[in-house]
């Protein structure tokens, strides 16, 4: 069920000079959220910002055996994320959701490999929880600019999720992109059944989807496009998807195969990697 609430800020935890995790009292949305779904958020009552912004639900929060809210992982880049960074306990944030298509959660014997880039960690706490609940062996590949921007590592290890890290400056894990260790491990895990999940910048998603396909693994990627409404109303957040029957006839690598635009808010934000045509 779709809900819009003026959610009270339960707490706001700054993780660095621009990352924060904000906990919101939106229990009805939280209880209805499946991993990979998002909320449309508006901070402030005025008209700057005017439109809501999409955020993956980061954690579903429990206390005393009941869902009492949700949290968002945010990186300060614009007006809304700036306001979320600055907000304090007791402020309210308008929160509409849950929205969008969730991840398809795999069961054993399949393994789950979640690949996160930067703030793309956001959907993987709820997905990790769902996978662990199904006893699916889960690994988080997590890349960032530097070790100081890798967050919540203990949260994942406490749940038995294996970590593979990469940083651009080499301060923790592999130096370079997260696809470096991903490719290495896929090469090693020759026979294992693996579902690859990815969220992060689009070039990373494209690289992950390609690597997964190269090693004959399925992937599910969560995209983030500029969104106006989150409900399929405006047609702004479209992404090119391969035409159903044209896949085999796709010409050379360089020409884009036949495709059409779909609204990432209602057809996504989660797509099968092989369905997307990268622009």
């Amino acid at each position, binding site marked *: 069920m779709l809900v819009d609430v003026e959610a009270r800020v339960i707490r706001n935890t700054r993780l660095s000079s621009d990352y924060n995790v904000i906990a919101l009292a939106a229990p009805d949305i939280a209880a209805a959220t499946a991993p990979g779904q998002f909320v449309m958020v508006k901070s402030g009552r005025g008209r700057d910002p005017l439109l809501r912004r999409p955020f993956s639900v980061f954690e579903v929060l429990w206390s005393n055996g009941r869902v009492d809210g949700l949290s968002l992982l945010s990186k300060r880049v614009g007006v809304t994320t700036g306001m979320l960074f600055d907000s304090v306990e007791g402020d309210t944030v308008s929160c509409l959701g849950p929205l969008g298509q969730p991840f398809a959660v795999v069961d054993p014997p399949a393994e789950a490999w979640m690949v996160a880039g930067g703030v793309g960690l956001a959907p993987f706490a709820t997905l990790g929880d769902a996978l662990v609940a199904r006893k699916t062996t889960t690994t988080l590949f997590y890349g960032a600019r530097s070790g100081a921007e890798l967050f919540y590592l203990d949260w994942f290890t406490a749940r038995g999720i294996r970590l593979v890290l990469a940083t651009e400056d080499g301060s923790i894990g592999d130096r370079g992109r997260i696809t470096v260790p991903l490719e290495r491990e896929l090469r090693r895990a020759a026979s294992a059944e693996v579902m690859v999940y990815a969220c992060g910048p689009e070039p990373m998603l494209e690289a992950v989807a390609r690597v997964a396909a190269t090693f004959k693994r399925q992937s599910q990627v969560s995209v983030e496009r*500029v969104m106006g*409404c989150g409900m399929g*109303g405006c*047609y702004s957040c479209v992404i090119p998807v391969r035409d159903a029957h044209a896949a085999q006839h796709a010409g050379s690598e360089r020409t884009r195969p036949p495709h059409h635009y779909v609204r990432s808010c209602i057809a996504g934000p989660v797509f099968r990697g092989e369905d997307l045509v990268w622009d």
Partner: protein
Amino acid sequence: MTDLSVQIGSLRLRNPLIAASGCFGYGVEYAEAVDLSTLGGVAVKGLFLKEREGHPPERIVETPSGMLNAIGLQGIGVHRFIREKLPELRRLRATVIVNICGSTLDEYVELARILSDAEGVAALELNISCPNIKEGGITFGCSLHGTFDVVSAVRKVTSLPVVPKLTPNVADVASFAKASEDAGADGVSLVNTFLAMAIDVDTRRPILSNIVGGLSGPAIRPIAVRMVYECRRAVKIPVIGMGGIASASDALEFIIAGATAVQVGTANFVDPFIWAKLLDGLNDYMRRHNLERISDLVGTIDTSARDKQWISS
């Protein structure tokens, strides 16, 4: 009990609130948030005869109190609309206003014919005002002859109410309302968006892939109110007003300026639950002002205390 119903040609709307085209998908997307049967009408996303791909992203950007869009009229085409969306809209008991777009006069006529035969279409809104595509529409909407011709051609082939949607990107919008009335329109709707642009100063690139786009939202409201006022004075047919409505008092401003009904676009993106709030606000106003029929309020702006000599542009 207050009466919020209004009349557009032969069409009776249960209240004056209509979801604006392009801001409400095909209506069905919003069924989870809004009981569509409680709206005066639902103007669906602009339809061509054929499916259209639209412009590449970026398609929108937020600007002060507004947004620019250049969607490029992505759509499923009239045939799929009738097959895939109209039955559901009928089931939801929506009053469906189909916004139609053509590259040629014949396309408008063809669309009008097809939709007149479809079950569950309440009215046709002729989109002759989309600022974002080259292939037509706007070329009719920017010429008095073009407007007259397309309205009269559609008029001849349909008994559905015909409402051309006017562009504000002309010097004298009221003359376009008059041309529409002369051609047999049942009403006019305005405004479509204002042609505008935004630039990323670091990259020196336009933010929208289409370079220019249409400005909507609260930023345009005062200009839209003025244009509705001008049109109301120029024609006898109903005027459907829109542009930046985000509250009941915004809607009332349009009604008092001369709008028989209003449409809400951008504000629905911000709050898909806005419709019940708008209805409550209208009812509340009616009670406070001891009004029985909202239609009695249309065009009741009182300019007597001011200088009556009002100078156009």
